[in-house]
């Protein structure tokens, strides 16, 4: 899908699907910066993207009135890319999700709308990303503990791998001494939650609006973050700090605008120090992520500074059963708050939980893959599993089948309220 640029790649037809004034503003700013440059000298234009049709089925009936066992819908993610002669670029990735049952899951977002510039400073290189983007930090698989720049788009999947776009000024300088990054992050985004008719919801629906934030931090509060990372031979190391509005909400019961009981999202003002490290030696990857966070409210409603960590290994077996790649991951998740810990992104509270994941890559022409993951609480009777099989059908179509199983949820877990919401998901994707 690569072609010569049209005479202007900056028509405004995307605007009518935009979700909110904040994002619209940011998009306008980004395009305002990018368009004159792009129009002046667009050397390369690319349009790609994917369309995914999806249907979910929960074998058990829901706990709350109005919940259905099946839901279908689709998601659409176009990706536009403009590049000038210098290699500077503008990336635009809107996202649209339609779910025919849950109106809260039906949503739009700008995953990316940023302008990228870079250049040299002596032997080093600098890079500036301006606009809406996604940033990933970390090394582990069972949870992403240090990763904090973007809010989670939780309605997409309870695995919480999908994230909302975050407005940022992201400056990077790197050289043979490592990579240093600075982030200025205005416009805090609240987490997305399933609506009253959707599955995987809590007993009370989460009110999408208003959002409560720490007194000093309104929506326009500017969060700051920095990270240093480097490879020391087999060791990859990252040190990070974040200061600003938490991405993890604390949920308080309240009465919503029409007087019905609901959950109010509250976001504390926090500081987080993070460490991520991976030692790659032979077939072993040894991984550690650890954080220290201050300023956040715990399960019993008190502010409590705490540390949490996830550590473990990934082992890659040599081709087994005639050419299949097999990797095995085992990770232990701990949270120093113990029983006072709140769940973060995972439905379970990972205060003392062991995760085991295996991935089979069958190395066939259709790129078939099977992943099986289990997280088990070492203290409570909680256990959840996820199994996913995916393969290509043609060069453009692929299919995936997922089972998300809440095998056992302890009454002490907040997600006990969604204990009957295991589901199967079948999805069919078209790649442009």
């Amino acid at each position, binding site marked *: 899908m690569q072609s010569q640029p049209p005479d202007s790649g900056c028509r405004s037809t995307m605007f009518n699907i935009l979700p909110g004034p904040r994002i619209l503003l940011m998009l306008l700013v980004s395009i305002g910066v990018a368009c004159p440059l792009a129009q002046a000298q667009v050397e390369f234009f*690319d349009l*790609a993207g*994917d369309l995914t049709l999806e249907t979910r089925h929960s074998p058990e009936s829901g706990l709350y009135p109005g919940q259905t066992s099946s839901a279908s819908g689709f998601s659409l993610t176009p990706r536009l*890319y403009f*590049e000038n002669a210098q290699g500077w*670029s503008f990336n635009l990735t809107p996202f649209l999700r339609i779910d025919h049952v849950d109106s809260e899951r039906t949503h739009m977002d700008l995953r990316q709308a940023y302008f*990228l510039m*870079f250049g*040299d400073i002596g032997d080093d*290189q600098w*890079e500036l990303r301006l606009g809406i*983007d*996604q*940033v*990933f930090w970390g*090394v582990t698989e069972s949870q992403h503990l240090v990763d904090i720049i973007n809010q989670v788009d939780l309605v997409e999947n309870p695995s919480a*791998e999908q994230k909302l776009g975050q407005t940022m000024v992201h400056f*990077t300088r*790197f050289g043979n001494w490592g*990579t240093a990054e600075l982030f200025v992050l205005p416009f805090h985004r609240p987490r997305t939650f399933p609506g009253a008719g959707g599955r995987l919801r809590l007993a009370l629906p989460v009110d999408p609006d208003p959002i409560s934030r720490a007194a000093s931090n309104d929506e326009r509060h500017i969060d700051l973050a920095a990270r240093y*990372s480097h*490879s020391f*031979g087999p060791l*990859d190391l990252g040190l990070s700090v974040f200061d600003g509005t938490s991405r993890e909400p604390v949920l308080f019961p309240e009465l919503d605008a029409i007087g019905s009981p609901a959950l109010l999202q509250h976001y504390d003002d926090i500081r987080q120090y993070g460490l991520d490290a*991976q030692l*790659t030696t*032979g*077939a*072993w*990857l040894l991984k550690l992520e650890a954080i220290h966070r201050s300023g956040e409210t715990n399960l019993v409603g008190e502010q409590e500074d705490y540390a949490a960590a996830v550590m473990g290994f*990934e082992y*890659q*077996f*040599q*081709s087994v059963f005639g*050419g299949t*790649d097999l990797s095995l991951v085992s990770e232990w998740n701990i949270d120093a708050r113990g029983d006072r810990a709140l769940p973060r992104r995972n439905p379970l509270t990972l205060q003392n939980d062991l995760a085991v994941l295996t991935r089979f890559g069958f*190395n*066939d*022409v*259709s*790129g078939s893959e099977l992943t099986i993951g289990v997280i088990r609480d070492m203290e409570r009777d909680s256990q959840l599993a996820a199994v996913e099989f995916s393969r*290509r059908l043609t*060069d*453009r179509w*692929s299919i995936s089948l997922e089972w998300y199983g809440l095998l056992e949820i302890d009454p002490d877990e907040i997600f006990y309220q969604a204990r009957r919401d295991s589901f199967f998901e079948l999805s069919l*994707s078209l*790649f*442009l």
Partner: protein
Amino acid sequence: MITVKPALTALLFSVVAGSYGMSALSQTPEEIGLRIEKEYHEALDGFANYTANLNMLLRNRQGQESERQLRIKVLEMENDGDRSLFIFDEPRDVAGTAFLVHSRREENDEQWLYLPALQRVKRIASSNRSGSFMGSEFAYEDMGVPEVEKFTYKYLRDESCANSECTVTERYPVDKRSGYRRQVVWRDKDELRIRRIEFYDRKDSLLKTLNFEDYQQYQDRYWQAHTLDMVNHVTGKSTTLTWSDFVYGEDVNANEFTQTGLRRIR
């Protein structure tokens, strides 16, 4: 019989000595094999960098075909192994995925994978050398030109191949995790171009044959085969690599071949 043997030996020596000078007389087959490999690498050195496009055509025993499309960038490093970047364009579900390799002469290579959906750079183990590259008949260890130190060598004989006079050498992987016990390499004497490689598995049975065709010269110096045909004799599957659009010595930025540069790849 008694007279034939010295004559044969003399003939063999004259052939070897003819190509490699008189000192070959005193060299063991291992020394000659290493020398041929070093000369081959010297002929390749100094290219600074190149970029190229790669099409992979995968065929199974029934003749069903599937295609992969990649872009490759290679950066030569002083006193270290080359750095290579593989950017996937097709199939479309993996479009934008990039694979970065820092080859090392003595230690294990370092490898990173960029997953565009999560914008995640993942350092991966380089130990699975025998694993298939993108479902093809090429293993990871078959991609690119391995550093001299990754094998030990033994010169076998001269014979004609691809209408030229060729040397035949054997090489034995140093890494115990290699999928091979040995490889036999045919190289023409004119330009030291590899014409054929036979791959023998750990049990020493013939696993795969790779033929190199359509050689073209760049910069008046560097020979590149544009068609590489790999046949797996056990499964009956085959893979054809077709290279195109080689560009040498352009302004390739060394910073692209880093973890941070990887996040910017398109």
